[in-house]
C-alpha cells in the first residue's frame, strides 16, 4: 500500500473551563481525546458520530484552524501541528476546507467572481485578469453558469452557495479537502447533487477527502473508509463495506440501527433502544467512554479503557462474541 497522505496521531484538543474573576482553569472539555487515523491519497475517509463527538474539531485540526493540545497531524511528511504561521500559510494551499453552512461561509460583501479569484491573487499565482478567467472556469466546473460571477452570495440558493464554497476550496488546486458536514444544511433533494459533484471532482482533480457527517446516508455513499467517533474518541475504523456488513463496536451497531430503514417490509425488526444521554465531554466516564449506554457493559468496561486494536476500541467486539 502507498504511504498515507495524512497521518493523525494521538490528536488531543482540550478546551479549558475557566471560572471566577481570575479565570482559574477548573477543568477541561475533552473535545478530541487521543484520536489517530490515516488518510491515503485519492480516498475518502468518512468521520461519523453524533453532535459533540469531536468530529468537526478533528477536521478543523487537520487544516490547522484549531491548534491541537497534543498529538501530531502529519501531512505529506510534515507535522503541521507545530508549524509556524508563515510556513503553515504556504502549506494551506494544499489543505482546504468546505464548510457546513453555505450561508455563513461566503463573505456577503464580495461578489462570487472576486471571491473565487481572490485565493489566486492573494498567493500571487496569477494576475487579476487571469485569476478572474480561472474563476469563471471553476464556476462552470462546479455546475454554475458564468453569469453568477457578478452576483453577491445573498442572491444564490443554499445549494448554489455550497457549490461556490467547493469551487473556492478548489481554486488553489489542493490535494486534501476536509468537508465538514457539507450537505447537512441543504435540502434533501440538493444533497445528492452536491455529493455527486464532490465525487466527480474527486475523480477529475485526484482529490483526497476527509468527509465529516452525522448522516450515515451521505457517509455510506461517499466514503471508502469510515472512522466512528464517540465522545472525542475513535470507537471503530474499517472500510465502508465492513462497517455496514458487520459492525464490531456496539456503538456502531446502534448507530446503524438508528438509521431509518427505507424498505417498509423491513421496518418491523427489533430495534436496539439506547438509554440516557451522551455524557459530558468535560467529565467523561471512567473506563470505556461508551459503557454508560452500552447494552453489553461488563465490569472491566467500567474500569479500563479499551485501546484501539484491530480497528475497534472495545473489550468485547461484536464479531468475537458471536452476537
Amino acid at each position: 500500500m502507498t504511504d498515507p497522505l495524512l497521518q493523525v496521531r494521538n490528536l488531543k484538543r482540550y478546551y479549558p473551563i475557566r471560572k471566577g474573576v481570575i479565570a482559574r482553569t477548573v477543568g477541561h472539555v475533552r473535545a478530541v481525546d487521543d484520536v489517530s487515523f490515516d488518510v491515503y491519497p485519492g480516498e475518502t475517509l468518512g468521520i461519523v458520530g453524533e453532535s459533540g463527538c469531536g468530529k468537526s474539531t478533528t477536521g478543523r485540526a487537520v487544516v490547522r484552524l484549531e491548534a491541537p493540545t497534543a498529538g501530531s497531524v502529519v501531512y505529506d511528511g510534515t507535522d503541521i501541528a507545530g508549524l509556524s504561521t508563515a510556513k503553515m500559510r504556504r502549506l494551506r494551499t494544499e489543505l482546504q476546507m468546505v464548510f457546513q453552512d453555505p450561508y455563513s461561509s461566503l463573505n456577503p460583501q464580495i461578489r462570487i467572481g472576486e471571491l473565487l479569484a481572490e485565493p489566486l491573487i492573494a498567493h500571487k499565482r496569477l494576475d487579476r485578469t487571469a485569476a478572474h478567467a480561472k474563476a469563471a472556469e471553476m464556476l462552470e466546473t462546479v455546475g454554475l453558469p458564468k453569469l453568477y460571477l457578478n452576483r453577491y452570495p445573498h442572491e444564490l440558493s443554499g445549494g448554489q452557495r455550497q457549490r461556490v464554497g467547493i469551487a473556492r476550496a478548489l481554486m488553489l488546486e489542493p490535494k486534501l479537502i476536509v468537508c465538514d458536514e457539507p450537505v447537512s444544511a441543504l435540502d434533501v433533494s440538493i444533497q445528492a447533487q452536491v455529493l455527486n459533484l464532490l465525487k466527480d471532482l474527486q475523480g477529475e482533480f485526484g482529490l483526497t477527502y476527509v468527509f465529516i457527517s452525522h448522516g450515515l446516508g451521505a457517509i455510506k455513499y461517499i466514503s471508502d473508509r469510515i472512522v466512528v467517533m464517540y465522545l472525542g474518541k475513535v470507537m471503530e475504523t474499517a472500510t465502508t463495506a465492513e462497517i455496514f456488513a458487520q459492525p464490531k463496536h456496539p456503538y456502531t451497531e446502534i448507530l446503524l440501527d438508528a438509521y431509518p430503514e427505507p424498505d417498509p417490509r423491513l421496518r418491523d425488526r427489533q430495534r436496539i433502544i439506547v438509554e440516557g444521554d451522551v455524557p459530558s465531554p468535560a467529565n467523561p466516564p471512567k473506563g470505556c467512554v461508551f459503557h454508560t449506554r452500552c447494552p453489553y457493559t461488563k465490569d472491566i468496561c467500567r474500569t479500563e479503557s479499551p485501546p484501539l486494536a484491530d480497528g475497534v476500541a472495545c473489550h468485547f467486539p461484536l464479531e468475537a462474541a458471536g452476537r
Partner: protein
Amino acid sequence: MHKRVEPEAGRSSARLMLRRFLKHRMAVAGLVVVVLMVLMAALAPVLAPHNPNQIFDKFEASPSSEHLLGTDSVGRDVLSRLIYGARVSMSVGVGAVVVYVVIGVLLGLLAGYYGRWVDQVIMRITDVFMSFPYFMVILILVSVLGPSLLTIIVVIGVLAWPMIGRLVRGSVLSIKQTDYVQAAVALGYRTPRILFRHILPNALSPIIVNATFGVAQAIILESGLSFLGMGVRPPAASWGNMLSEAQSITVLSSQPWIWIPPGLMILLAVLAINFVGDGLRDSMESRS
C-alpha cells in the same frame, strides 16, 4: 407606484441599504440640510455678502437691507460670519471624527482579532481614557496646546476613539468566528487582507452610524469650547464664538440677531446630522 419583482443581478447590500434609507423621510430631509450646510461652507466666499472680518462703522446694528442679520458688537456683518462659521463647524465635525474613527478602528481590529494580551492592553487603555472627565481634559489640553482649529480636531480625535474602539472590537469578536473568516484563514490569506477585506467591511454599519452621531457631537463640543473662548480664536468666525457674545446681558436681551442665528445653525446642523444617523442605523440594521 410600480414595484419591480425581478431582482437585479449583482445588486449589493449597499444598494438595498440606500433604497431603505431613501424611504426614511426625516433622514432624507436631514441629509438635504447637511448637504446645504456643506455647500454653504464650501462656497462661503461666493455666498457671503461681506468679508466676515471687515469692520463697519455701525456696530450692534439691527438687521437692514445692507446687513440682513445686522452687525455684531465690533461692527462685523453677522450673516457673513454665520456663513463662514459653517466652515469651522463642518471641519471640526468631520475632521475630529475621521481622526478618532481611524484610531478606534485600528485598535479595535487589533484587540478583537488578536485577543489575549493585545486585547488586554488595548482595552485597559480605553478604560483609562473613558474614566477621565472628557470635557475637562479637552479644556486642559486645548489651553496647553493653544486653541486653534487644528488643535480642537486633534484633541477631540485623540480623546474620543475608545467608544469606536470598543464597538469595533465587539464586532470583530463575532465576525472572526464566522465561517467566511475561517475560510480566509484556511485559504492562507495574510492578516491585513483578512482584517481589511473580510472583517472590516462587515463591521462597517455600526461604525458609520456611530461616526455620524459623532460629527454632531463634535460640532456641539466645538461650539462649547468656542463659547468658553477655548475654541477657534477671534477674529475667525465660528458659531460657537459668535454665541459667546450672548454672555453680555444687553446682547442677550435686546440684540437677538447676534446670537439667535448661530444658535439656530448649531441646532439645525446637529438635528439634521442626528436624523441622518437615525436613518442610517435603521436602514443598515434591518439587514440580517
